[in-house]
Structures are given as structure tokens and as C-alpha cells.
């Protein structure tokens, strides 16, 4: 499983890095970024799905 953030959609709500800090971080502007290449370590799939479900701008994509 892999997560990506569409930077054109992200408005920096922080729901991803707030709710799943092992998968997401924030940049200097406070916009969401994925940690590493976005590969979701085993056990964090639910956290990734919740981050996607909670993003107000529908900016998070998950590929399985």
C-alpha cells in the first residue's frame, strides 16, 4: 500500500500528519507531505485509510 498527497488539492488542514504522524509530516508552509516514498508499513493500513477518509480536500490517494 502506498499513499500520495495531491499538492494542488492540499490546503494544509493537517488531518493526515495530525492523525497518522508515522505516514505524514508537514513542510515549512504547513502543507501535508508523505514520509519517505509513501509506502505504508504493515499495520498502518487503517491509519492510511482514515487519513484519506478525513482529508477535507480529498487530497490523499491510496494505491494498493
Amino acid at each position, binding site marked *: 500500500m502506498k499513499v500520495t498527497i495531491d499538492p494542488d488539492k492540499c490546503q494544509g*488542514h*493537517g488531518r493526515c500528519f495530525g492523525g497518522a504522524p508515522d505516514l505524514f509530516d508537514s513542510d*515549512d*508552509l*504547513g502543507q501535508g507531505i508523505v514520509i519517505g516514498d509513501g509506502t505504508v508499513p504493515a499495520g498502518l493500513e487503517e491509519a492510511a485509510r482514515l487519513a484519506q477518509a478525513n482529508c477535507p480536500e480529498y487530497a490523499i490517494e491510496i494505491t494498493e
Partner: protein
Amino acid sequence: MTISKPPVEDFATDFDHTDPEWVANPFPIWDELRETCPVAHTERYGGAWLPTRYEDVSAIAHDTEHFTSRTVVIGNGRPGDDAPPAPMGVAPPISSDPPFHAIARRLMQPAFSPKSIEPYNEFTRNLCRRLLAPFSDASQIDISADYAEHIPTLVIAHMIGFPPEDEALFREFVHVVLEAVDAPIEERIEMFEPIRIYFEQQIMDHIENPRDDLTDFLLNAEIAGQKLAPEHVFGTMVLLIVAGIDTTWSAIGSSLWYLAQHPDEAERLRHDPELMSLAIEEFLRAFAPVNMARLVKEDFDFNGCPMKKDDWILLSFPAANRDPEVFEDADKVIIDRKVNRHAAFGLGIHRCLGSNLARMEMRIAIEEFLAHFSSFSLADPSDVVWSQGQVRGVRKAVVNIS
């Protein structure tokens, strides 16, 4: 002085967000409109529309082609000849439209990123403890007047380097900008005058005595190699004070007001600190304080609503957050709600710049209140005062403490 207005008989055709029924409890009004209307209209304020479905609120928030943010507080006037011209608006970036908006916003974003906010955690925690200390042996505390109203006021004063002893003045500014919306336009201009003078004095003091705070940051900031226009600096300062105070004050107050009626939930939060993040998002959803506004740019048909140029839109993120199409059990407060795509901080390009700061203040304020009082309950549920206008929050709620 406010003009006395007839009470609202029908919120679908004559809504008013300052009506006492709305101020006391807007949720049933929004629920009914959402099911039956769903975009309400009023001739008040020179004409305004109120979408109540999440989908419609989202569509308008994302549509900067048909709707302008030139002013975001509904009043009896429209931005006149004395207002700074578009695209900046009176309080950039909240009042700016594309493409200037992105420039003004990008300038401010680093100062409000999570990593920039973190250094204020300790200041905020010490402040909360200092506010609560005198109540250790007391039997009652007003969660608004004794606690919530001071927290964001003193944090933002600290961040921008304004004297903390002027905090009551800042709340008065907020009242003038956000609550005194019924006053005639001439009277409002008069009410703004002391605000303008105060800010000019503070800005002059920063020019003469430079220091490391947000005011100096703005004074030194540049766009394309040029210092910001004085009205840009002034407008953003006003925005930081106004948007930084009663929003978070309201969110803290509503959260504690809820917990004061649900001691079992307060107890859960005391024993399971992990729950706090979910609870804060749920308080933000259920008691979202902020309704924004837009103006219609040109005559435009929105889902069958014949919107006219300069009609207001009351952009109710709180109403969107209660839409059962988007939220399961939308009318229930579920502090461990996991799926919660709420819009408390807005949608689209104007996402609340201070959202990271607001969450930090909410978390610390609630944590400290829960830690200080082993139990607390609302003294008299009928004696709770809510703010009037686009920002909704508790202005008086006395709780019994032990």
C-alpha cells in the same frame, strides 16, 4: 446601539444569524432548512443566501470565480469606496481573491506551520495553569469569562507583541468587527476609529523598538522585493487579532460546556489521553464556531437560486458539519468518532491559517481544565449566554467545580 428588528418568522425566506432563536440554538434551524430548502434566503443585510448542505457549502467555498472574499463579515453595508481595492481586501489574506491571495497567504503560512506553533505550547500551558490557579479552592468558575476568553487573547498578543494588559481592548475590537453587525454603517466606521488608532500606535512602537515577533515579521516582509503596503500590514494585524481570539475562545468554551454536561466523557478523557485528538476533531465538527461569508461577484444561478451581484452568502461550515449525508449520527457528539471529514476550518483556499494554533490551544486548555478539576458540572443550563453573529461560542457558562 443596535437597530431593533422584527423576529424571524420563517428562516427559509427571512433568516437572520443574529436572531435570538438562532443564537440560542441554530442546529434545529439548519436541520430543517437542509431537509426542506436547502438554500435559505433573506432580504436582510441587503440580500443574503444560506446553504445548509455540506455539498453546497463546499461548492461555494471552492468557487472563487463566482464568489469573492472581499469582505467575509455580513453587515448592512458593502465594501465601499473607502475600502482597500480588490484584490487585497481589508484584511489579507482572508479578504483576498486569487491570484493575490496565494501570495499574501504564502507569506504568512510559515509562521503558522505546526513546527512554528510548537514553541508556544509551553507559554500556553503556563497561561492556562495561571488562569486556573486562583480557582483551586473555589466552588464555581465561568468557563468563558474566567478561562476561555483569556487563552487565545493572551497567546496572540504574545505572538504579535502587543501589551497583554490591553487584552480587554482586543476583545472589544472583536466585538466591534464580528458582533456589532446590526449597527448602521456610519456608526460602525466610527467604532473602527479607535481600533485603527491603537494599531497604528502599536505598529509605530514596533518600528521604533524592533523585536522578534509577528508584527516585526510583517513590517519586514517583502512581496517581490517590496515591503508590504501599510494597509496590508494593518489589515493582516487586524485579521490576526480578530481571527485569533474569539474563534478559539469559542471552541474551547463549547468543548468545556459540553464536557460540563457529560462528566462520564470528561472522565474518559482524563483516563485515556490518546482519545483527546479524536475528541478535539469532534468538538470542532459539532461546535464549529466559524461561519464565513462571501459576496456574489455577478448575477449567477446557483442550483436554481437566482443570486444577484453583491448578495451575501453566509457560508456555514457549522451547518455543513451537521449534514447527515456526510456524517453518521450527525446530530450526536461522539468523542471517539474516527471518520470525521469536518469543515470547521473552512474548505478551499481560505483554510484557517491558524488551525494548528487553534488545535494546540484547544488541546492544552481542555487538558489543563480536566487536570485541575476532578469534577465539574454546568451550574444552570438555562443560564448560558452564546455569542451573536458569525462566530458562535459560549460567552457565559458557570460550572460547579471540585
